[in-house]
C-alpha cells in the first residue's frame, strides 16, 4: 500500500461537467457522508477520487483511467452545453490539521477529433506556488504529450511525488460478502473493491499487526454481535486462509465458525473495520449499512472512530440510512446533500439548509434533516401504481 510521508486528506473539491455534476464546489472535512436519492450520483462523486487514484496507480494512467470509464463522452455531464472540458480540481491538506504543506491539483480534459482523450490543463500548486502548469511550450510543439498527465509519470512528477503517492493511497470499498466467501468467483484481483481478496489481505499482514487489528475489530464488533468472543485467521488443508470466530454458547467451550457461516452483516462489518485500519489514505465506502440491523448501523460512525483511535484517515461514506446519521457526533458540515436538478446534480453541505440548526436544537437529528431533503417527492406515487 502506498504511504506518504505526511498523511493527507482532500479538503475541497471542484468539478465541472463530471458525469451528472455540471458544477460542484464543496469543502470536504475529514469525515464526509454523501446522501441523496437513488440515482443522484453518490457513486459518481466518489468516482472522482477513484479516477485520481487510477491516474497514478500501477497499470493506470490518464488514458487507462478514461478508457475504464468508457471514454470522454461517457464522462461528460449530459447537462453540459456543447463540448466543454471536464474539469477536476482538488485541494489537499495534512490530516493533522496543519495548514502546510497544502496542495492543489487541477486537471481539465476533453477529446480530440479522433475521440482520444486530450489534456487541456494540468496544474499543481504547493503552498500556493505553481509546481506545474500545462500546457507548456513543449506541449504546444508536441501535442501528443497531452495524452499523458505529468502526475502519472515518475520522470516528471518528482517535485510533487508526495501528491501522486497520496492519490495512490485512495482506497474504495464496496464489500460483497458473497465474494469474500467465494473469492474464486473473480480471479484474484488485488485490491478488489468488492472484497474477493479480503482474506488474502488479512493473511498477508504480519502476524503481530494482524493479531492487534483483529483484537480491535473484535472489540468494535461486540457492539453488534455481543456473543462473539474471538476472531482469528486459520488455513485449511490446501493452505487457503479463512477467518473464524468463536461464539459464546450454552456449551462451555463455545464453537468456531468460519467466514462461510458468518452472517452477511458480520462479515461485511469485519471487512469494513479492517479497511479502516488498513492504510492511511482516504477511504471511500459505499453504503456500509447494507445487511445490518438499524441499531447496529447507528453505531457505525462510532465504531469507525473507535478502531481508528489516534490516526484519523479521511473517510467518505455514501449512505441511504437515517440511522447512520442519528449519531449526535455528526456535524452539519459533514453531510453533503446531493439533489438532482435538470441542470445536473447539485452538491451542498447540510449546513446550508435554512432550517437545519433550528431543527437540531429542537430534537431533530442530522438524519431527519437529511432524509427530508433526499426522500423522493413522488414516494406516494407508489400508492398509485395500477395493479
Amino acid at each position: 500500500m502506498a504511504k506518504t510521508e505526511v498523511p493527507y486528506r482532500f479538503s475541497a473539491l471542484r468539478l465541472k461537467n463530471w458525469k451528472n455534476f455540471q458544477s460542484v464546489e464543496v469543502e470536504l472535512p475529514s469525515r464526509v457522508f454523501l446522501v441523496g436519492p437513488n440515482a443522484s450520483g453518490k457513486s459518481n462523486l466518489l468516482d472522482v477520487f477513484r479516477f485520481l487514484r487510477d491516474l497514478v496507480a500501477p497499470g493506470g494512467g490518464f488514458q487507462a483511467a478514461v478508457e475504464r470509464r468508457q471514454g470522454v463522452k461517457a464522462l461528460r455531464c449530459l447537462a453540459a452545453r456543447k463540448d466543454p472540458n471536464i474539469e477536476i480540481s482538488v485541494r489537499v491538506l495534512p490530516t493533522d490539521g496543519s495548514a502546510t504543506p497544502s496542495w492543489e491539483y487541477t486537471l481539465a480534459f476533453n477529446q480530440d477529433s479522433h475521440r482520444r482523450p486530450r489534456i487541456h490543463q494540468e496544474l499543481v500548486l504547493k503552498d500556493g506556488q505553481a509546481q506545474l502548469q500545462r500546457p507548456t511550450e513543449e506541449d504546444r510543439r508536441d501535442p501528443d504529450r497531452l495524452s499523458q498527465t505529468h502526475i502519472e509519470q515518475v520522470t516528471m512528477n518528482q517535485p510533487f511525488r508526495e501528491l501522486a503517492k497520496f492519490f495512490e493511497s485512495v482506497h474504495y470499498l464496496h464489500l460483497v460478502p458473497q465474494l469474500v466467501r467465494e473469492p474464486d468467483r473473480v480471479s484474484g484481483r488485488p485490491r478488489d473493491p468488492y472484497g474477493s481478496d479480503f482474506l488474502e489481505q488479512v493473511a498477508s499482514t504480519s502476524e503481530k499487526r494482524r493479531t492487534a487489528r483483529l483484537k480491535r475489530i473484535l472489540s468494535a464488533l461486540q457492539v453488534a454481535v455481543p456473543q462473539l468472543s474471538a476472531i482469528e485467521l486459520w488455513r485449511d488443508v490446501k493452505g487457503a486462509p479463512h477467518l473464524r470466530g468463536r461464539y459464546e454458547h450454552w456449551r462451555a467451550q463455545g464453537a468456531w465458525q468460519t467466514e462461510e457461516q458468518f452472517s452477511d452483516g458480520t462479515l461485511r462489518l469485519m471487512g469494513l473495520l479492517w479497511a479502516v485500519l488498513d492504510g492511511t489514505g482516504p477511504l471511500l465506502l459505499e453504503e456500509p449499512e447494507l445487511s445490518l440491523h438499524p441499531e447496529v448501523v447507528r453505531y457505525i460512525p462510532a465504531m469507525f472512530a473507535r478502531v481508528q483511535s489516534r490516526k484519523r484517515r479521511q473517510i467518505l461514506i455514501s449512505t441511504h440510512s437515517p440511522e447512520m446519521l442519528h449519531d449526535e457526533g455528526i456535524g452539519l458540515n459533514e453531510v453533503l446533500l446531493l439533489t438532482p436538478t435538470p441542470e445536473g446534480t447539485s452538491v451542498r453541505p447540510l449546513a446550508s439548509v435554512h432550517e437545519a440548526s433550528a431543527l437540531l436544537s429542537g430534537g431533530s437529528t442530522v438524519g431527519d434533516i437529511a432524509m427530508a431533503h433526499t426522500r423522493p417527492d413522488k414516494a406516494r406515487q407508489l400508492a398509485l401504481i395500477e395493479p
Partner: protein
Amino acid sequence: MNTVEVWVNIAVEGKTDEAVACRLIRHVGALPGKVYVADGKENLRKRVPGYNQAAKGQPWLVLVDLDRCSCAVALLQKWVPQPSPYLCMRVAVRMVEAWLLADATNIADFLGVPVSRVPSAPEQLSDPKQEIVALAAQSRRRAIREDMVPNTGIGQRVGTAYTARLIEFIENHWDITQAASHAPSLQRSINCLTRVIQRHRFTLSGTPFSAEASL
C-alpha cells in the same frame, strides 16, 4: 405570477398524514415544502420544539393525531407553550381518518358502500381507522376488500394496501370543503393555515428585497 409563492414545510407522524397535509396546503393556495416524517407520535413530540424554532422564519404545518388524548387544546399547550408566528400546529380529533370520513359522499363512492353507512359525525368516533376498515369490509368492490381489510389472526390492524388506498383517495377524490363542513377540527386547521400563510405573504411583500426574490 402576481401573488408571492409560499412554501410550507411539513412535519407529520406518517404517510397518510403527509398526503393530507400536502392537500391542505395546496387547498389554501400555498405549496408543500420539505416533508419531515417522524414515524410515530413520540418521535414527533420530541422534535416539535425544533419545528417551532424553524417556524420563526418560514411556515410549518405540524399535523398530529389526538388519538386517545382527551383534549386537543391541552395537547397543544403541552407540546408548544409558545408557538412561533409561522407555526400551524394542528391536532386531528382522534385521527385524520375522521377528516376523510367527513367527506361522506366521496368516501362512500370510493369504498363502494352506500353513503348512509358513513357515520355523520366522524369526530365523535373513538377509532375512525377501524370505521374505515369496517366500511371497506362491506365494499361492493372486491379489490377494496382485499386491499384494505386485514387478514384475521395474524395481527394486522389494516389490510396490506390500506395506506396506499387511502393516499389514492386523499390525492384524487377527497373534497376538502365538503369535509370541513362536517369536521370542525379540519375547518379550524384550514383557518389556521390560511392565517399563517397570509401573515407570511404579508411579511414577504412588506419587505421589498425578499418579496422580489420570491416573485
